[in-house]
């Protein structure tokens, strides 16, 4: 291609192009280069050096040229904000070594991204706006739920309130009698009633507060039966009012999950209320909801089945129900956020929320990993590769949820990685899959005591140090097992944080 043909081509380009030699002398510029500079063509034509048109302090073109010369390849600048001819540009500069009429030159193209930049900013603003709207809707949805709950709760509170104030009045009447001894029984009763009402109100407010304070609380070990019963109690009034039945069947009472209690409660309340709404809308004769908690050993999952005898979910929308804003309710009655949020919450627990196909009614199933699995999931780094983890891995076995939660708190922000387990058999399953650096076990546990657990672990060929965590009464057992099973030490309950870590550090150092 001749230079003339090339220049013809370049004149028609959308980009501003200028060709200069290695010293910065202008050989050629296209039409859009003139447009970019906003100078009359004759002024541009008069200029000899590129720096006459684009000052070095604005954009150092020669810097890119020398870099292109050095590397003998195209050099691309970063996106830069440049003020040229009193106009704000967002430019990208490209310097490309070329041969032009036998001379080695550089083709400089300036790409003006101002329009794209503006579009991008507009897009960013709109995204921001959308996000805000979304969070507002989520908030509105929350408030609606609160509103519904409040109506039920106000009734619950008013009864004990009436009893309390009424009994206060009774006390007043009793006190009017000059012979107080005669009124003794009445007074005692009234005081007991007031106290009892106080406790009732406190309980209601507590559960209400818990529900409202959906802070991003960290996960804790909780007994799932308690969790289910609490959630049921939150919706019980609604079911009673609608003359609907709610049956709870706990097949294993000792199931413990590492969960965000409030979020899981939120999910359950949502599913219960959805079921009730669906059954009422379909005018089912005897509306009934069954909630079953079971455990799948082989899969290491616990299963919560929520089954109603309502109209069920038609096949054609089954895939859609978890979508944000999908709702079958009338406008104003539901935002369609419930299930999508619920599903996200369960996913954040490495669990699954699904619809099980059934002939009649609707069957939701929540699967949550048993606590050992979720302990691992909670320590993100463990998921990647347990071998690369810097901290020591410590397995704590205790059937008491409170102790596990305490230990979890202790280990927060330390270099140790904490894995909790509620029973010997479960802990053995963990040991089968992973090596840990230290095992701390409660001695008195229902399924398998500390000695048995330690014995089985040793039989598996595990040699890590073992600590018994127990009360003074069991010290004798420790002395016995010390040699036999290689139990390294003892943590006496109750213990302080310092005592706890001192023992752990000593044990790990000796090793």
């Amino acid at each position: 291609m001749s230079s003339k043909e090339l220049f013809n081509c370049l004149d028609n380009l959308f980009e501003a192009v200028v060709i200069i030699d290695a010293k910065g002398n202008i050989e050629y510029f296209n039409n859009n280069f003139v447009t970019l500079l906003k100078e009359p063509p004759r002024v541009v034509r008069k200029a000899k050096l590129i720096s006459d048109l684009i000052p070095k302090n604005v954009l150092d073109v020669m810097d890119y040229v020398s870099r292109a010369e050095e590397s003998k390849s195209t050099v691309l600048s970063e996106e830069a904000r440049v003020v040229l001819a009193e106009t704000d540009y967002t430019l990208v500069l490209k310097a490309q070594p070329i041969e032009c009429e036998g001379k080695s030159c550089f083709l400089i193209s300036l790409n003006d991204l101002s329009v794209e930049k503006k579009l991008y900013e507009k897009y960013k603003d709109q995204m921001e706006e959308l996000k805000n709207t979304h969070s507002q809707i989520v908030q509105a949805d929350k408030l609606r739920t609160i509103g519904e709950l409040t109506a039920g709760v106000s009734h619950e509170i008013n009864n004990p309130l009436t009893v309390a104030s009424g009994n206060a009045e009774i006390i007043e009447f009793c006190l009017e009698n000059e012979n107080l001894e005669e009124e003794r029984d009445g007074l005692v009763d009234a005081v007991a009633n007031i106290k009892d009402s106080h406790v009732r109100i406190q309980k209601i407010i507590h559960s209400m507060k818990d529900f409202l304070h959906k802070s991003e609380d960290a996960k804790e070990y909780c007994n799932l039966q308690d969790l289910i019963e609490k959630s049921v109690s939150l919706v019980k009034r609604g079911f009673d009012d609608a003359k609907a039945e709610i049956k709870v069947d706990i097949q294993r009472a000792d199931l413990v999950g590492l969960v965000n209690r409030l979020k899981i409660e939120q999910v359950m309340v949502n599913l219960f209320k959805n079921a009730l709404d669906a059954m009422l809308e379909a005018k089912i004769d005897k509306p009934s909801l069954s909630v079953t908690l079971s455990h799948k050993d082989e899969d290491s999952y616990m299963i919560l089945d929520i089954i109603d005898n309502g109209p069920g979910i038609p096949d054609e929308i089954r895939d859609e129900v978890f979508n944000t804003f999908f709702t079958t309710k009338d406008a104003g009655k539901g935002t369609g956020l419930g299930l999508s949020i619920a599903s996200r919450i369960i996913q954040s627990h490495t669990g699954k929320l699904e619809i099980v196909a059934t002939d009649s009614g609707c069957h939701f199933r929540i699967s949550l990993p048993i606590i050992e699995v979720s302990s691992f999931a909670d320590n993100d780094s463990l998921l990647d590769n347990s071998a690369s983890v810097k901290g020591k891995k410590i397995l704590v076995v205790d059937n008491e949820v409170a102790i596990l939660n305490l230990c979890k708190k202790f280990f927060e922000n330390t270099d140790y990685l904490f894995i909790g387990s509620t029973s010997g058999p479960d802990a053995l399953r963990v040991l089968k899959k992973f090596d840990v650096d230290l095992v701390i076990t409660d001695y008195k546990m229902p399924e398998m005591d500390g000695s048995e657990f330690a014995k089985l672990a040793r039989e598996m060929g595990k040699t890590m140090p073992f600590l018994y965590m127990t009360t003074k009464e069991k010290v004798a057992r420790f002395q016995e097992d010390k040699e036999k099973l290689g139990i390294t030490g003892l943590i006496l309950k109750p213990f302080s944080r310092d005592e706890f870590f001192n023992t752990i550090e000593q044990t790990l150092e000796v090793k």
Partner: protein
Amino acid sequence: MSADWQTRKVLVVDDDKKICDLFTAFIKIGAKKISCVTANDVTQALFKIDNQEFDLVFIDQKLPSKSGTDFIRTVRTSMKHRNLKIILMSAALEKEDILTAMEMGVSQVMVKPFTFAQIMEKLKDNLHSEEDDIKMKKELN
């Protein structure tokens, strides 16, 4: 007329036993002669009004299985109880609820929590005869 007094009978229906106890205690203090019978649900209440004469019924709106309004609906369809005075109690009565209750033939509505004085006033309003008034005032003083 004083014989009338002895037969004045009030039925209190609430699933919260403590509320029933409170009524009994209030009536014992403020209007000793009125006998107070309690029931914990609509079925019990219907059984009691069929077998005893009552002059006034206090019934809670929210009750297990059948509600206070269900009770009123049933009662108003029977010839025997068409004129029975009924006071509907509830924790949170909306304007609409009150209107529906009134349409169904409830005598009065009462919002919880209530006080001793309110109960006495309701009793006086609904069981009044001049003689009773005098007696009740005496009791109150």
